[in-house]
Structures are given as C-alpha cells and as structure tokens.
C-alpha cells in the first residue's frame, strides 16, 4: 500500500495522472531539499531557520496516509518556534529524517510506475 493518499492527489489534480506525477516529483525534491537544510541547521547549531523548514514540511504532509506521522510533524513544527524547545525537538526531527527517506522512496516508486504506463 502506498504511503501517499493517491485518491486525494488525483482529486487535487482533477483526475490527471500527469498531475499526480508532477506533485510527487516536486514532493520528492522539496523534501530532499528541506532534509539538507535540517542537517545544515543541526550541524551549525544555528536553529533560527528551523521553524520555517518544519512548517514547510508540515504543509506537505497532508498528502500522506499516515496521519499520526503528520500530527507528529505538526508538533515538531510548533516546538521549533520556541528556542528553549529546539534542543529537544532536534532529536525528534533527526528521527523523522528516516521517515522522510521512506516517503521519498515511495514517491519515487510511484513516479516510476506512472512513467512506465
């Protein structure tokens, strides 16, 4: 079963499989880009950009099936606003990067399936 809500994606793109593909390609790229930014933030210990990065990711999580993961990302995004909470949320975010990789892999598989049709 896909990690993405494909019915929702079809609905957003007006039933177009090309539209679904375009959204997933962008999701794959954007999540990869945000992941790099997270790693830079954590390596540099300059946490100021973290709130925007996590909110960017949060707003993309509505198309996944795992609502618990989406809710967790939402909490991470909230916590990343607060300086005193960044040290704690950092570990949660690092754990999330593994989930992000799984999402990106699944997006890639669906993109390949749609491309081979």
């Amino acid at each position, binding site marked *: 079963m896909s990690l993405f809500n494909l019915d929702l994606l079809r609905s957003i793109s007006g039933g177009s499989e090309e539209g679904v593909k*375009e959204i997933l390609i962008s999701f794959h790229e*954007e999540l990869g880009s945000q992941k790099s930014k997270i790693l830079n933030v954590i390596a540099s210990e300059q946490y100021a950009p973290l709130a925007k990065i996590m*909110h960017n990711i949060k*707003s993309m999580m509505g198309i996944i099936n795992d609502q618990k993961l989406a809710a967790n990302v939402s909490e991470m*995004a909230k*916590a990343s606003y607060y300086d*005193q909470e960044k040290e704690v949320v950092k570990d*949660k975010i690092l754990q999330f990067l593994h989930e992000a990789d799984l999402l990106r892999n699944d997006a890639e598989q669906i993109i390949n399936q749609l491309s081979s049709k």
Partner: protein
Amino acid sequence: MAKIKVGVIEDNKTLLIMYRHYITSLKDVELAFAAESIEDISSKTKLKEKPDLIFLDIDLDGKSGIDGIPQIKKMFPSAGIIMLTNSEEGKDVIHALKMGAIGYVVKTVDLKDLYNAVIGVLDSGGFLSPQIAREVIGEIQKKNGLNLHVSFSRREQDVLEQLKKGLSYKAIATNLFITSHAVNQHLKRIYKKTGVNSRGELMALWYNEEV
C-alpha cells in the same frame, strides 16, 4: 459568467503545484499566474491576465508576504489579497489586514479552503479561516485585558488541552516535544493569568467553565 481570475504566490514548490492544479480544475475560477516570489510576478511575461484575487504566502523567502503587499497593490490595484499562512498568530493577521489584505487562510491540504476563501471574498468582501478568526478575537481581547481562554498564548493553550486530558507533566512534555521544565514554565504563566496556585484549582476553574 466570467471566471474569477486568481493568482498564487507561494515559495513551497509542492504546494504551488497543488494549488495550480486545484485552481485549474475549478469551473468558475481561472489561474492568472502561479509564482514562487513577488519578484517572480514582476516579470510581465509570466502574467496571463490581471488577477481579481491573489493568494499570497506570508513567509516567502526574500521579501515577506506582508512587506510585499504595497508592491502587489501597486501592480494590481483592483486585486484582493488573501494571505496564506502556517502561522496562526493573531498579531500577524492584524498586521496583514492593516496593510491591506482582505483575507487569511491557514495552509492546509484541504484545498477547498481556497475555494471557500474566493467565494467568501466575493460574497462578503473578506474571509478568515475559523482558526484564524479565533486567534484574532484572542488578540483583540488580550489587548483589552480580558482574562478568557483565548488570552492564552498558543503554546499555553496546547499545554492546557493536554492538562485537561489528565496527563502528567512528563506525558505532556513528550506529546508536545518539550522538556518538563518548559511545561512547568508554561504552567506558571497559566496560573499567573488565571490567579490560581495549583493544578487542582485550575481544573476546578475549568469545570466551572471559567477558563
């Protein structure tokens, strides 16, 4: 009936693509442009037609959405501006409305909210997502010194919600991804605002519907 022309400025490419697809799929709405920045729409070649409404991301890279409102109003004087936001901070909303925005929508994957905002603006000249309306009320009441539930900060409300479920401080800390110390700090502020000295008193206030 002529279609309503809508422009979108959003720097998250995935969201921008979703908005573009969604708006294009609507019968009575037409996409005027989809841009990643305010600078991006300055390039006239990207403009198909003058928009009636513009959805503008509040937290753009480079010039922020709120700071860009005057520039957009100069470019499209007759277009209404609806802010797109991740933030539900009441003071941001009031600032954007003062700058000339006529609506505020929380970013969500439920894209019907975009359509509701378009219809809301056409019907009544403005639109606020329900979460945003609540924050605006809270902000106004805070300024008037009212000691109501909505006068708590967002984080204090988060802690209160957890507290109402009967959770321990440790469980609250885990659920909100904060330390127990941070939970304590939020609670101290809640106690101060409500004039209570303990969790028990706070819960008693809650059950008497005073919080």
